[in-house]
């Protein structure tokens, strides 16, 4: 079964998820051909074990992102029974457009695949899991970190093809991201500090970690009431905001009932507190009994490795 893998890039290189896409393709008995839009990451893709070949697709349209143009260009370069891409914003768009061009169905955000093709994915924001079978030809996008990555040591052939398509989206102006951090009410990951942080200046550690993982920074009522530098807008709890992120990291927060009311429905809760009897541990999925001074630098280091 020929599988077309749309390489996912990060900056000028390959995103680690690409190796997972290749691994997943192999797991359903597919022979993966990796397409690199604009040629980005082609050499690296060729070194992924199990890749049959890499096609570096270069053309004018790859200067800026135009999902439809990229899809059209990539689509003309190879056939394949199955298209696999990452369930990233660009991956979803390119795969969906290629599927529409080919008139084939697409299922997005899969967390497991099996021959058949059987696709498992979360639905209703993870409140249920769906397993379905999809006929080939088809397109599937995969959730990051749900599949084992193929190893290194491959040496696939890289060919370069010139292929472009008409660009319909013209970029007029780039606006750099304002350094505003995400609001707690909207973020999928939140790291919050409590009175245990010792002082508002120490929230800078939380800010750094938040920037690393695209998280928002929250605070307990105790922190907001004690330190005027911590604004009410950051407060999570009964009289603050109620949040339901995928991950909530509570640092130096004891876990009084009013705070729990604001975050207990988070999907996963990590608690870092030096007091082993702190009530927060009763709701934490992963509790770390340690001082923030010791734990946060370690956390920064580990997250940096991802």
């Amino acid at each position, binding site marked *: 079964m020929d599988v077309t893998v749309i390489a996912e890039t990060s900056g000028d290189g390959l995103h680690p998820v690409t190796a997972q896409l290749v691994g997943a393709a192999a797991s359903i008995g597919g022979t993966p051909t990796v397409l690199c839009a604009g040629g980005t990451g082609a050499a690296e893709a060729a070194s992924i074990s199990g890749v049959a070949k890499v096609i570096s697709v270069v053309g004018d349209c790859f200067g800026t992102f135009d999902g439809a143009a990229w899809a059209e260009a990539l689509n003309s370069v190879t056939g394949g029974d199955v298209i696999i891409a990452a369930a990233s914003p660009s991956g979803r768009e390119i795969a969906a457009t290629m599927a529409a061009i080919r008139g084939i169905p697409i299922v997005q955000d899969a967390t497991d695949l099996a021959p058949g093709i059987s696709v498992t994915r979360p639905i209703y924001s993870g409140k*249920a899991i769906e*397993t379905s079978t999809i006929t080939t030809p088809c397109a599937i996008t995969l959730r990051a970190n749900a599949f084992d990555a193929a190893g290194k040591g491959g040496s696939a052939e890289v060919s370069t093809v010139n292929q472009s398509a008409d660009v319909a989206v013209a970029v007029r102006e780039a606006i750099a991201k304002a350094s505003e951090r995400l609001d707690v009410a909207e973020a999928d990951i939140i790291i919050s500090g409590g009175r245990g942080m010792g002082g508002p200046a120490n929230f800078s550690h939380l800010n750094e970690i938040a920037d690393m993982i695209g998280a928002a920074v929250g605070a307990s009522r105790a922190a907001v009431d004690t330190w005027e530098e911590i604004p009410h807008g950051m407060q999570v709890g009964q009289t603050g905001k109620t949040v339901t992120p995928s991950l909530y990291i509570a640092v130096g927060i004891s876990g009084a009932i009013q705070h729990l009311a604001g975050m207990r429905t988070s999907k*996963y809760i990590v608690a870092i507190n030096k007091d082993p009897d702190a009530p927060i541990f009763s709701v934490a*999925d992963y509790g770390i009994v340690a001082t923030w001074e010791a734990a946060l630098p370690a956390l920064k280091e580990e997250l940096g490795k991802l």
Partner: protein
Amino acid sequence: MGIAVLLKQVPDTTAKISVSGGRVDESAVSKWSMSPYDEYALESALQLKESGGGDLVAITCGPARAAKMLTDAAAVGADSLLHILVEDLNALDSTQVQTILAAAVAHSGSDIVFCGKQAADTNAGSTGPGVAHLMDASCVTMVSEVASDGSSLTAMRASPNGNERVAVSAPCVFAFDKGINELRRPNVRGIMMAKKKVAEVLGPADLGVDVSASSVSIVSHTPPPQKPPGQKFEGADSVAAVVGKLRDEANVI
């Protein structure tokens, strides 16, 4: 301007989802709502209509209960409503849904389409780009804002370094991420006027779309795996292990 907004009714994001007999029990869903990203799309579409004139049609493909969502769209300003009645959306694959919606847009005569980037039930994101292709329209995704500068339409979309303003012309599809404006509240006048806006109800066959053979068949729905009981670790040395578990066990980073 002929503006169409594609709306999907989904279980409210706060509603409990229960599984019974291997399927999500829709009858047990306590509250149904407009999919959140669709709300941002609708608000932006209303603002575009208000600034440039034209007609706004709210379109949904779904079961009878979705009619209420169309009435809510009318209450905030949609001029007309189009309901493609499909009792079980789960029985259709992405190609069929997109074909129906593209045909519905054509039926309405609109050439500017707004939709949410992904629906809160499937979290897929195929509809915008797929419908755009079928309409032979340009497509901009991850949009937060749309404006008209007379001759073309501009949109603010996310980029790796922040945002960028892009320009397209009709026919085009805008797939919305979180927009800069929340959906406006209705008022009593809007609610009363909404009563008078009767939706046009069609079936897929009326649009010439065959929905007999889907390429995707659901095998089962299951509740999410039980989380393992809370684990407690001693000392900062355990941070590495916890981060690994967050990545591999919990899959949240």
